[in-house]
Each structure stands twice: as structure tokens, then as C-alpha cells.
């Protein structure tokens, strides 16, 4: 949006009603909370319109108006309830100050194309509000559980103390429970055993196969690709049902004929099942990386006397490594996050973290689940960062993005 539209001040006849409408919307919330929505709307609209008039006509100084707005709102909030509300109210004051000057100075048009009609401008911002609501829908559930995991009570809800930002209402006891409770620790350990082994299997076999699949002379490519992707497409419940029958026979074979212990056989079963579920992700990411791979590099290496193994490890592997790693991360998270198959294939000895969470949610609800969930959110943020960095690096290496 390079086009910079010259901006000009807008008349009060536009600014005041618009600001009043925004104030009325907020007033509706407060009003319904305190008895009458209609009075709230009218009061809110009147207050914001008055403030706007005061800022523009009386004070005429944007910097001063800003501080007056913040402090004024915070003061009202403090009198009404306390520190927590004062902070919230201060932020609201900041927002309304910004809104009033944004409207008055015509800044809202600055980044838009000059020829847009007022209707189009309104739609532009209305659309962004809609998108904002959808983003809130996407993110809120994940953000809501984070403060709740520090709840001092054994509840799944915000206590009045938490809303007052009372330090006594917060505690780390659910985290302490997670790190000291045997059952949670055992399931954590199981997850950390199963997921890496499953990842190793799917990454090593998957990378090899992806290299084969990306060669131009691969016969039956479509069929083979469909078979290899199928674990991702077949619903988990069906995979789990099929595996339930098959792996119980396999488990009997391993225990009775090969003489393995029940626990060890159980781990092998779950690892194999999870490895198969992770394979499509490895195939997809690695083949996607190989699409941009310049095959003449391998020919050049071979030309200069490198064997196929050397060529693969010294030339091809470093270049496709970002794809391999992000495929591996996908495979890891698939196994680490998987419940249905492990419920059907595993026995109590292989109880993983998601399984423990699942039983917790279904039967005995304890807020420890929220502590675990928060830890997992942090882990997924880290993983997301790594994958994102790898993707950019890979694009840069292949010269696909100017960055």
C-alpha cells in the first residue's frame, strides 16, 4: 500500500457522531451490566461525544489530550473498583483518544487508495473488524487457559480474586502437581519415549522414499503416493480400529513366540503405529522441498567422482535438511499429540500425555490439565517458530523469496 493519500481534517459533523457511535457500543456493555442497556448507550455516546468535542475544540493539543484521557479514565476506573479496573480503563481511554484523533485528522484514509468512496472506506474497516472477531475466536480459547492454569483454587473458572489481580488468587500448585504426580510424570515419560522413536522411523524411511519419489523415472508414482499419504486421509478412528485387531495379534506373536515382555511389546506396537501416522507429513514436506532441488547438482557431484552415498549426504541432504527437519517436527507432534490410536493399540503401561489428559477431561477433572495444556502451548509456539524459520531458510536457499 504505497499509495499515500493526502489527508485533511474532517468536520465535526462527521467526527462527533462516529465517535459517539463507538462510545455507545461500549456503553451498551456497561449499561446492560448495570440494569439498562438503553441508558448505557445514550450515556456512553454522550460522554464520548463530549470528550471528542472537548479535545478538538477546547484543548486543541493532541499530546495533552492523550494524557488527560488516560489519567481521567484510569481515575474513574480506580474509584469504581480498584487497580485492575484502573489499568483496563486507562487502556480504554488511550483507545478513545486514538480513535477521536484518527477520525478528526483523517488518518484513516492515509493508507488507502485516494479514489475510494466513503462506503468503500467504511467496508474496508468494517471488514477488518469482522476479521478481527474471527481472529479473536481463533486465539481466545488458547489464551484463556493460560491464566487459569495459575489458579489457586481447584476450579476451571476465573475466581473474583483473579479478576482483581490479587496475588493470593494465583499459584503454581497445578504445575507442582504435574511435576510431582507419578501418573503425570509416567505419561510424560512415555510420550517422550514413543514420539522420538516414531519420528526417527518415519523420518529415515520417509526421506529415503521422498528422494525416490522425486526422481523423474519413478514408475507407479501416483499409486505409491496415494498409499503413502493414506494414513493422513483415513480417519484416525478407522486406522485405530484396523490397528486394534492387527496389533493385538502382533502383540501376542511378540510376547508368545519372541518372548518379549508385555511392556516392551506394547511400546513397539505404539511406536510402529505412530511412525506410520507420521509418514505422510514427512513425505509431503520433503517432496515439497525436493521440487525446488536442482538435480544438476547431483550430476555435477557424480561427474566429479562422488558415489551415490557421498552425493546424498554431502550435496542433497544439506539442501533438503530444512524440509526434513520440519517433516520430522510434524511427525513428532503427530505422535506427541495422538490419542485415538494409542487408546486402542496401547495398554495402561503405554499411557501417554494426551491419553492422560483425555481420561482427565472425561472423568476426574483437575486443573492440572490446564497446567499441562499451558506447557504444551509453549512447546507448540517453540515448534512453530522453528518450522517457520526453517521454511524461510529453505525458501531463501532455493531463491524463491526475495528476503
Amino acid at each position, binding site marked *: 500500500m504505497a499509495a499515500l493519500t493526502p489527508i485533511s481534517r474532517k468536520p465535526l459533523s462527521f467526527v462527533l457522531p462516529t465517535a459517539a457511535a463507538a462510545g455507545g457500543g461500549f456503553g451498551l456493555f456497561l449499561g446492560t451490566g448495570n440494569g439498562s442497556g438503553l441508558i448505557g448507550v445514550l450515556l456512553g455516546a454522550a460522554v464520548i461525544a463530549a470528550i471528542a468535542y472537548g479535545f478538538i475544540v477546547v484543548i486543541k493539543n493532541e499530546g495533552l489530550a492523550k494524557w488527560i484521557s488516560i489519567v481521567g479514565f484510569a481515575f474513574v476506573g480506580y474509584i469504581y473498583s480498584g487497580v485492575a479496573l484502573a489499568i483496563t480503563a486507562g487502556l480504554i481511554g488511550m483507545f478513545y483518544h486514538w480513535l477521536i484523533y484518527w477520525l478528526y485528522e483523517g488518518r484513516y484514509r492515509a493508507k488507502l487508495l485516494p479514489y475510494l468512496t466513503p462506503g468503500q472506506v467504511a467496508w474496508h474497516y468494517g471488514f477488518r473488524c469482522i476479521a478481527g472477531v474471527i481472529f479473536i475466536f481463533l486465539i481466545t480459547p488458547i489464551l484463556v487457559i493460560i491464566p487459569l492454569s495459575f489458579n489457586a483454587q481447584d476450579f476451571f473458572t476465573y475466581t473474583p480474586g483473579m479478576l482483581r489481580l490479587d496475588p493470593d488468587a494465583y499459584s503454581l500448585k497445578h504445575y507442582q502437581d504435574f511435576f510431582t504426580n507419578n501418573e503425570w510424570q509416567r505419561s510424560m515419560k512415555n510420550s517422550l519415549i514413543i514420539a522420538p522413536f516414531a519420528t526417527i*522411523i518415519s523420518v529415515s524411511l520417509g526421506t529415503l522414499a521422498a528422494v525416490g519419489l522425486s*526422481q523423474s523415472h519413478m514408475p507407479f508414482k501416483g499409486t505409491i503416493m496415494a498409499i503413502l*499419504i493414506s494414513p493422513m486421509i*483415513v*480417519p484416525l*478412528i478407522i486406522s485405530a480400529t484396523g490397528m486394534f485387531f492387527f496389533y493385538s495379534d502382533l502383540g501376542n506373536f511378540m510376547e508368545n513366540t519372541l518372548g518379549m515382555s508385555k511392556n516392551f511389546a506394547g511400546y513397539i506396537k505404539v511406536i510402529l503405529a505412530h*511412525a506410520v501416522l507420521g509418514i505422510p507429513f514427512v513425505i509431503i514436506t520433503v517432496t515439497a522441498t525436493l521440487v525446488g532441488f536442482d538435480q544438476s547438482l547431483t550430476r555435477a557431484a557424480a561427474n566429479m567422482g562422488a558415489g551415490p552415498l557421498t552425493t546424498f549426504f554431502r550435496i542433497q541432504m544439506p539442501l533438503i535438511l530444512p524440509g526434513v527437519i520440519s517433516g520430522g517436527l510434524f511427525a513428532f507432534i503427530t505422535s506427541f499429540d495422538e490419542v485415538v490410536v494409542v487408546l486402542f493399540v496401547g495398554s495402561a503401561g503405554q499411557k501417554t500425555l494426551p491419553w492422560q489428559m*483425555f481420561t482427565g477431561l472425561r472423568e476426574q477433572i483437575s486443573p492440572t490439565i490446564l497446567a499441562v495444556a499451558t506447557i504444551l502451548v509453549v512447546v507448540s509456539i517453540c515448534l512453530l517458530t522453528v518450522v*517457520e524459520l526453517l521454511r524461510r531458510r529453505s525458501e531463501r536457499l532455493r531463491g524463491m523469496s526475495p528476503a
Partner: protein
Amino acid sequence: MSDISADGLDANGLVLAADGTPLKRSLARAMRRQKLRALLLVAPLLIFVLLTFIVPIASMLFRSVENDIVSNTLPNTVQELGRWDASTSELPPEPVFEAMFFDMFIAAEAKRHTRLGTRLNYEQTGISSLFRQTGRKLDDIGKVTKKPLEAFDSAWKDGETWYAIFNAGDAPASKNLMKSQRGLLKRLTSDPASGDVNFSPRADVTKLLPKAAREYTAWAIFTAVQDEKDPATRDPWESVYTALILDLKTADLSGYTGPNEDLLKAAQAADLPVPAFSEAFADMDKDWATPVPWKTIQTHSGLYTSGYFLNAIDAQKTDDGVAWQPENKQILLKLFGRTLIMSLIITGSCIMLGYPIAWLLSNVSARNANLLLILVLLPFWTSLLVRTSAWKVMLQQNGVINEVLVWIGLVPDAERLILINNQFGTIVAMTHILLPFMILPMYSVMSTIPPVYLRAAKSMGATNWTAFWRVYFPQSIPGIGAGSILVFILSIGYYITPEIVGGTKGVFISNRIAYHISSSLNWGLAAALGTILLVVVLALYWAYDRIVGIDNVKLG
């Protein structure tokens, strides 16, 4: 080499490679080698996936039609019932009852009759308890014959007497009988039934006393293999006594010379009473005196059955064709319908919510798009269980949404909304969980639509709406299609989220499958339900492949 001219052509004018072979063949060989190498690279994974994924799925498909339990448990009865015409409302003839007695006796000893009862109970309620009771009372029939025989001559109390009669020792043995009885026990107990038995049936006795020899052999193998005891010294089952009395009625012992021939001849002369099997069965349970259980066994005696599939669509196989289940048991079709409708609603709401986001992502600067994309990818990367528990926190009676609504005053405290454990809860939570799967394909399609098209349309006089609807929207349809099929496929097989936030009204067909696997243990029905679901998904998968191409799936 002599016929090669200097310009690399042979006598026929074919181009040659450096080593003198025709270039065409040499190239074909190189191509073959490359193909082989590519195949070898893929082979380990392909074998792995085939063994650990495709084979289990195929075995599930097989299990949905497999039905050998009836003919494995009651082999002789099934054979005899084959001759009975079920359409006459008469009871089956006496040989059927007799065969049933011997089959059930072995099955009860191996404790497999209850399993068959459970299987047949899916088709005819009440059979399970009938089989259980019969298994308990079966000995009574045997005692009717055992006591008079033992009273007649106490030598029959001795296990060695029996062993002497039936064991071949040095005399020729009947290998066929041994093999068939081993096979019977193997199919019944799914145990190999191999190993040394210290017994083989005497060929001439087998011919003279076929039923007794059959039962004694089964008993001997069972005793040696399952109980790990020596059959030579132990008393046989009551069923062997019964079989012997039956055989003695018809056997011609005049030419027989063998161990204990006097005993056998004396027993035949005594003309001991034979139990009336049909009456004895009617005494055990009056249900046996009705044709109902017999018809059920006959109808479901095939090695393969369509019964599970019929059950999966609320129908059942009866002796006169296919019929609907009783009204109160018809739940599965309704559940299939609900799964489809709710998946469609979820897909629809994902389109509604995903389209504006994808549009925004593809119309802001690359920097902002990347930032906003993180907001989409974060839920995508967050554990499914975390998101499901978050929705439980949000939606419950004292949950965040209700608290906020009460605080604002939109909802009175006493009338908090019921948002969880119903279809609403499932739809909201699954829309949230599947939304990234809709946004990402839409975004990848929309980011390739040049924005100049819209401007061109507008410059030629189109209104905003016309420009969007006639120019932009048609180009974004592939993205909607790809996202919709992906979301629909995923949601139709969802299990975890409906299980936790769906209560009883918001569950899917997958929850029913899980119930049959882990609680009701009706695995055949679970496999049939899974197969139907799989067919639906594969059809959609095929459509997805045709529309988008499976190689074009992108992640993140």
C-alpha cells in the same frame, strides 16, 4: 568390433554407444537401472506402510464379513441343520439335537460356547443366556447314560478300559479321524492343538463305533493338549459314554476281536437306555423346543456374513430375508445422518469464517500476512487435547462465556446457557479446531489471484459486489473446494472432541465405533461401521485428488 565404422554406426546404420552396444539398448538399460533405483529407495517405506497400515485396514474389512465362529463351534450341527427346512414351523429332527449335544459339549469344555452365544445374541436377543445355561446343564444329559453303564459293569468306571478299546497301539490307526479332530479343536480354541497326545484312534473301532471314537479322540486330544494330562489313565467326558451307547444300538460287533470285546458285547446285550435329545434340550430350556434359536443358527451359519453390515444400517438378517430392526434399536442410520449433517454444518461455518481471513491474508502486505498467519498457525500447531480442554473451559456452565454473559447482564444468573454436552458444543469446538485446515488451502489459492483483475473489473464499471462475485469469487472456488473436502473428511471421522464436549446428543458415528471396540466388544459391527465410513472417506479422497491433486497438499 570389426564391423563398426569410424562414425559410430554399425553395419545396419544403428547408433552405437561407446562400448559398442546399440545406443537404444544402452539407454533403455540405463533407464531401467534408474527406475529400479527409485523403486528401491521407496521400497522400505512402501513395505512398512503396507504391513503396518494397509494390512490392518484390510484385516478390518475382512473382519466385518468374517463369520466362521458358528461353523467352527458347532460344525456337526451346522451340517445337520443344512438339511432342515426352516420354513415349516416344525422343530428340527432328532439328529440335529444329537449333533448339537456333542458340539456343545466340546465347546462347553473349551469354554467357547459363551462366545458363540454372544455372537448370536447380536442377531437374536436372549441366545447368549440360553447358551450359557445350556453349557451348565449339558452334563445332566451325559449322566443319564453314564450312570447305567457304570452300574452295569464297574469296569467302565476305569479310564484304562476306555483307552484300551480306542487306542490303536500296534493295530492300524485312523489317521483321518485324528487329523479332523485336531483341526476341529484348532478352529474351536484357536490354539494349534499340536503336540504329542499319546493316543491314536484304532481304525477298526472307528469303523464300528464311529461316534464314540470321534468323541473319545476329541477328548483325548483336548486332555493332552489343553489340560496337559495323560488320556491313558483318565475318565472320558460324559459325552463319550452317550456316544458309545448310541453306537452300540446299531453296531454289529459279531466280527470284532479286540481289547475288552466281552465288555462291549455285554453292554450291547444289556440294551441300555438312549437319551431323547430333543426332550432333554427342552427340559434344559424351553426355548430349545421352539424353532427360533435353530433358525438363528441356521441363518448365520455361513463362513461369511452380511449380518454386520445389515446391523450397521439398522437392518438384520432373518430366516425370511432382510428386515429392519425393531424401532427402538434403530439408532445407527440416525447417527450416520447426524454425523453427515453436523460435518456439513462444521464445513459450512469453516467456509464462512475462513473466507474473510484467507482474503485478508492474501490482500495485505507480505509482512503483515506473515504475522497474521502466525495467528492461524498457532491453533494449528497446538495440541488437539489442549484446544478441546480450552473449549470445555469456555463452554461449561460456569465457563468463561457464561460468566461474561452473566456479568454483562445478557443472561440471568439462574438461566445460564447450556453450551456444552450438546450439538452446539461439538460444532463450535470442531469449527475452531478445523478452521486452520480451511484457511490454509484457501490462502494458497487466493494468494495466486492477481489483484489487478478486481481493479480491472471495477474500472470497467462493475460495482464492488459484481467485481467480487463475477471475477474474484469464481477464481477462489478451487480453494474453497480443497478446504471443504479436507475439513469434511477430517470432521466425519472425529472422535476425541465429540467425546468430550458432545455429551450424548453431539456424538458422531466414530464414538459408536469406539464404544463397540472397547465396551460392547461387538468387533464385527465396529469393523462394518468403520468400513462404511472408510468408503465414504475414500470417495471424498478420490474427489479431492481429482480437484486438487494429492501432491499439492501443503502444510504451514
